[in-house]
C-alpha cells in the first residue's frame, strides 16, 4: 500500500524541484501584483493616495504584466510539467533542457519586470508605462520588449520539451491513447504556438527595432491588431490550466470521477481551433477595420462559447456524481454532501461559479453592437477580474492546496485558513467586480488614475458613484488580505516536518478515452486546421490595414520621445570609428 501513497516528490524529486521553482516565481509575482492591485483600488476610489497620479500607470502596468503574464504562465508551466510527468509516468528526455527553458523564462520576466518598476525612479530614465497592451506609438524602453522576447522563447521551448517527452513515450507505447492530462498540455501548446505568431511579429519586426531607433515609425493599427491576434487566445492560455484542474482534479475532490474523457478532449480541441480567429472582437470600435471583418470575428467568438458551455456541464455533472457517491440525494440536496470544508474543493467550486458570471458579461462584450456601451469602460476589468482574476487565479490557489503537499512532502499549515482565504477571495471579488460592472454601465472609464473628472459628473440610475467606490475599495482590500493569507499559509507550510504518505491518485473517468475517436489524438491535423482558420480570419483584414496605412504607418512620433538609453546606430558607429582611430 505504501507505493500508492508515494508522492510526486518521492517519485520524481528533480521534476518536483522544478515545479516548486516555477511556482515560487508565480507566487512572488502574485504577491507583488496584489500589492499594486490594492494601491490602484484605493487610489482610484480616492480612499487612500500616497503616489502621484502620474505614477498610477506604472503601478497599473506592473499589476497587469506581473499577474497575467508572470503569475499565470509560471503556474501553468509548473502545473503542466507535473501533469506531463505524472500522466506519462516518465521524466523529461533531458532535464537540463527543462531547467534551461525555465531559466530563460525567469530571466525574461526579471528583465521586463525591472524595466517596468524602474518607471518609479525618474532619474534613471528607463520606463515602460505602456500597460499590458503596449499599444504603439506609446513606447517602452527596448529592454521591455527584449524581456518579452526572451520569456516567450522560453515558453516555446517548454512546449518543445513536452512534445519531445510525449513522442518518446509514444515510441514505447505505440497503441495507447494519449493520457488525458498530456493531451491537454499538447493541445494548449499548439494553441500557444499559433497565438504567439502575432505578438512575435509585432515585437520582433516592428516594436523592438522601432524602440532601438532602427525604424522611424510603426503602423499603430497594424501592431495593435497583431497584439490582439495574440491577446485574445492568451486568455485561454490562462484558462486552460484551470480547466485541467477542473476536469482532472475537481471530480476527485468532490468524491467521484470525471464524467466524460472524450468530451474533455473535444473541448480542448475546440479551443485550439477557435481561440485565435476572434481577436478582432477587441477592436469592434477601432477605425480602419471594415464592418464585415468585425462581423466574422463576432460569429467566431460566439461559437467559442461552446467549449465553455460544455465545460460548465461536465464540471457540474462531475460534482453531482461525486456528491451522490458520498450519499447525497435529492434534486439539489446533493450539494450539501460535497466536501465544503476542503479549501481545494471549495476554492475550485467558487471559482467555477464566478466563471459563469464572467461568462455572461463576456457574452455581452462579444455582442458587436452592444459593445458600444461598455467598450473601454471599467465594465471590462470587472469582466476579466471574474475570469482570469477568479476562475483562473482562485482555481490555481485552490489547486496549490491540493498539490503543494505532494510536491514538498509537508502538510499544509492550516486548512481552515485556506478555507477562509478562498471564501474571502470570492466575497472580495463579488464586491469589486459588481461595482466595476455597474460603474461601467454608467460610462466610468477604465485605466484612469482619477475617474472624478472636473467638467462633469457620472449619473447613476440608482445608488451613487460614491457607494460603488466604497464597494470597490472594500472588495480590493479583501482580495489583498486573501492573497496575504494564501502566501502566508504556504510559507508557514514550509516549517512543517516532512512526512510520508501524502500522495494522491486521480481516478479514471466514467467514460474513458477508448470511447473517443482516434482522430482526436491527431495533433498535426488540429494544428493544420487551426492555421487555416487563422488565415481565413486574418489574411484579409491585415492585408487591408497594410494597404491603407502602409507597413510602417502614415507617420507619427513615438511617445515618450525622450527615453534615455535610446540606441542610435550612427552614434554607436562613430564611437567605434573613434576607438579604432579611423577618420570620418
Amino acid at each position: 500500500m505504501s507505493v500508492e501513497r508515494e508522492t510526486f516528490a518521492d517519485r520524481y524529486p528533480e521534476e518536483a524541484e522544478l515545479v516548486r521553482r516555477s511556482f515560487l516565481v508565480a507566487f512572488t509575482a502574485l504577491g507583488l501584483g496584489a500589492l499594486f492591485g490594492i494601491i490602484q483600488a484605493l487610489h482610484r476610489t480616492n480612499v487612500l493616495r500616497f503616489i502621484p497620479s502620474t505614477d498610477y500607470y506604472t503601478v497599473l502596468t506592473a499589476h497587469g504584466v506581473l499577474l497575467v503574464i508572470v503569475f499565470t504562465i509560471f503556474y501553468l508551466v509548473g502545473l503542466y510539467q507535473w501533469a506531463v510527468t505524472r500522466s506519462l509516468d516518465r521524466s523529461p528526455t533531458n532535464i537540463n533542457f527543462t531547467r534551461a527553458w525555465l531559466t530563460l523564462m525567469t530571466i525574461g520576466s526579471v528583465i521586463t519586470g525591472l524595466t517596468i518598476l524602474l518607471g518609479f525612479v525618474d532619474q534613471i530614465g528607463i520606463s515602460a508605462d505602456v500597460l499590458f497592451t503596449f499599444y504603439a506609438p506609446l513606447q517602452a524602453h527596448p529592454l521591455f520588449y527584449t524581456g518579452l522576447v526572451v520569456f516567450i522563447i522560453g515558453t516555446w521551448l517548454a512546449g518543445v520539451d513536452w512534445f519531445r517527452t510525449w513522442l518518446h513515450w509514444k515510441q514505447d507505447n505505440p497503441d495507447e491513447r494519449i493520457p488525458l492530462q498530456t493531451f491537454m498540455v499538447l493541445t494548449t501548446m499548439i494553441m500557444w504556438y499559433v497565438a504567439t505568431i502575432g505578438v512575435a511579429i509585432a515585437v520582433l519586426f516592428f516594436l523592438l527595432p522601432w524602440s532601438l531607433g532602427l525604424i522611424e515609425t510603426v503602423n499603430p493599427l497594424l501592431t495593435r491588431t497583431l497584439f490582439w491576434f495574440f491577446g485574445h487566445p492568451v486568455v485561454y492560455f490562462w484558462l486552460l490550466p484551470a480547466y485541467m484542474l477542473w476536469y482532472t482534479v475537481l471530480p476527485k475532490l468532490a468524491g467521484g470521477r470525471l464524467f466524460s474523457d472524450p468530451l474533455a478532449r473535444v473541448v480542448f480541441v475546440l479551443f485550439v481551433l477557435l481561440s485565435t480567429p476572434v481577436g478582432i472582437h477587441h477592436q469592434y470600435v477601432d477605425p480602419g477595420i471594415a464592418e464585415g471583418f468585425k462581423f466574422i470575428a463576432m460569429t467566431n467568438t460566439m461559437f467559442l462559447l461552446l467549449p465553455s458551455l460544455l465545460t460548465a456541464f461536465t464540471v457540474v455533472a462531475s460534482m453531482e456524481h461525486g456528491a451522490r457517491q458520498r450519499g447525497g440525494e435529492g434534486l439539489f440536496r446533493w450539494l450539501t454532501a460535497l466536501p465544503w470544508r476542503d479549501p481545494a474543493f471549495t476554492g475550485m467550486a467558487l471559482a467555477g461559479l464566478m466563471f459563469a458570471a464572467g461568462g455572461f458579461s463576456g457574452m455581452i462584450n462579444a455582442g458587436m453592437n452592444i459593445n458600444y456601451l461598455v467598450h473601454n469602460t471599467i465594465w471590462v476589468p470587472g469582466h476579466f477580474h471574474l475570469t482570469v482574476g477568479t476562475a483562473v487565479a482562485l482555481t490555481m490557489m485552490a489547486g496549490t492546496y491540493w498539490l503543494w503537499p505532494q510536491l514538498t512532502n509537508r502538510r499544509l499549515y492550516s486548512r481552515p485558513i485556506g478555507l477562509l482565504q478562498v471564501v474571502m477571495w470570492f466575497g472580495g471579488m463579488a464586491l469589486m467586480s459588481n461595482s466595476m460592472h455597474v460603474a461601467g454601465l454608467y460610462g466610468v472609464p477604465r485605466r484612469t488614475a482619477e475617474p472624478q473628472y472636473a467638467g462633469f459628473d457620472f449619473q447613476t440610475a440608482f445608488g451613487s458613484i460614491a457607494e460603488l467606490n466604497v464597494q470597490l475599495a472594500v472588495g480590493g482590500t479583501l482580495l489583498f488580505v486573501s492573497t496575504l493569507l494564501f502566501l502566508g499559509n504556504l510559507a508557514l507550510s514550509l516549517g512543517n516536518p516532512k512526512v510520508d504518505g501524502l500522495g494522491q491518485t486521480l481516478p479514471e473517468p466514467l467514460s474513458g478515452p477508448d470511447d473517443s475517436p482516434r482522430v482526436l489524438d491527431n495533433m498535426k491535423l488540429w494544428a493544420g486546421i487551426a492555421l487555416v482558420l487563422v488565415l481565413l480570419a486574418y489574411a484579409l483584414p491585415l492585408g487591408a490595414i497594410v494597404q491603407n496605412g502602409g507597413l510602417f504607418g502614415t507617420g507619427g512620433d513615438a511617445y515618450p520621445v525622450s527615453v534615455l538609453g535610446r540606441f542610435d546606430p550612427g552614434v554607436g558607429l562613430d564611437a567605434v570609428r573613434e576607438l579604432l582611430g579611423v577618420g570620418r
Partner: protein
Amino acid sequence: MHIHQYEKLWLGMSLLLIVGFIATITYGAVGVGVSMVDDSGGNVDPNSLDEHPEFSDPGVEQVGEDEYEAYVVARQFIFQPDPIVVPANSTVTFYVTSADVIHGFAVVGTNANTMVIPGEVAEITVEVNEAGEYGIVCHEYCGDGHHTMEGVLRVVPEGQYNSSDGGEQ
C-alpha cells in the same frame, strides 16, 4: 463516441443559444441599423494635420438641413474643439483622429464610443436630440496626463445655434 443523453440536450441548447445571439446582433445591424465604426473615415498623416483641409481647424459645420459634421482632433491631453457645440434635434457625424498616440473618444452616458488611432479617421454618426451638456472622456491610456483629458459636448436648443462660428461657443 458515447455521449450521454443529457449531454446531447445541453449541446443542442448551447448551439441554439449561440445561434440566437448571432441572430440578435444581425438584427441589430440589418434591422435596427446599428452600424459599426469601420474603415470609411480613411487615413491621414498624424504629423501634418495642420495642413489637412478639415483637421487643421477642427470644428462643426452644417452640411444639410439638420445635418452637421464635427471634426475633432485628440492629442495629449485635450480634445479640439472643446466644447463641441451642436444644435438639438440634428444628426451629427463625428470625424475623430489623433495627432499623437492612441486615444479614446466616448460621450459619457451614451453609446457614442470609438477608439482614436493615429493615421486613422474614426467616423460615427449620432442623432442628437435633447439639449444639455455631456462629458467626453478619453478612455484609452495615452500617457501620464491621461486622467486630465476630458471635453464637453454641448447640445444647444436649435434657435440658439450659430452656424457661422463653427460650433466654438
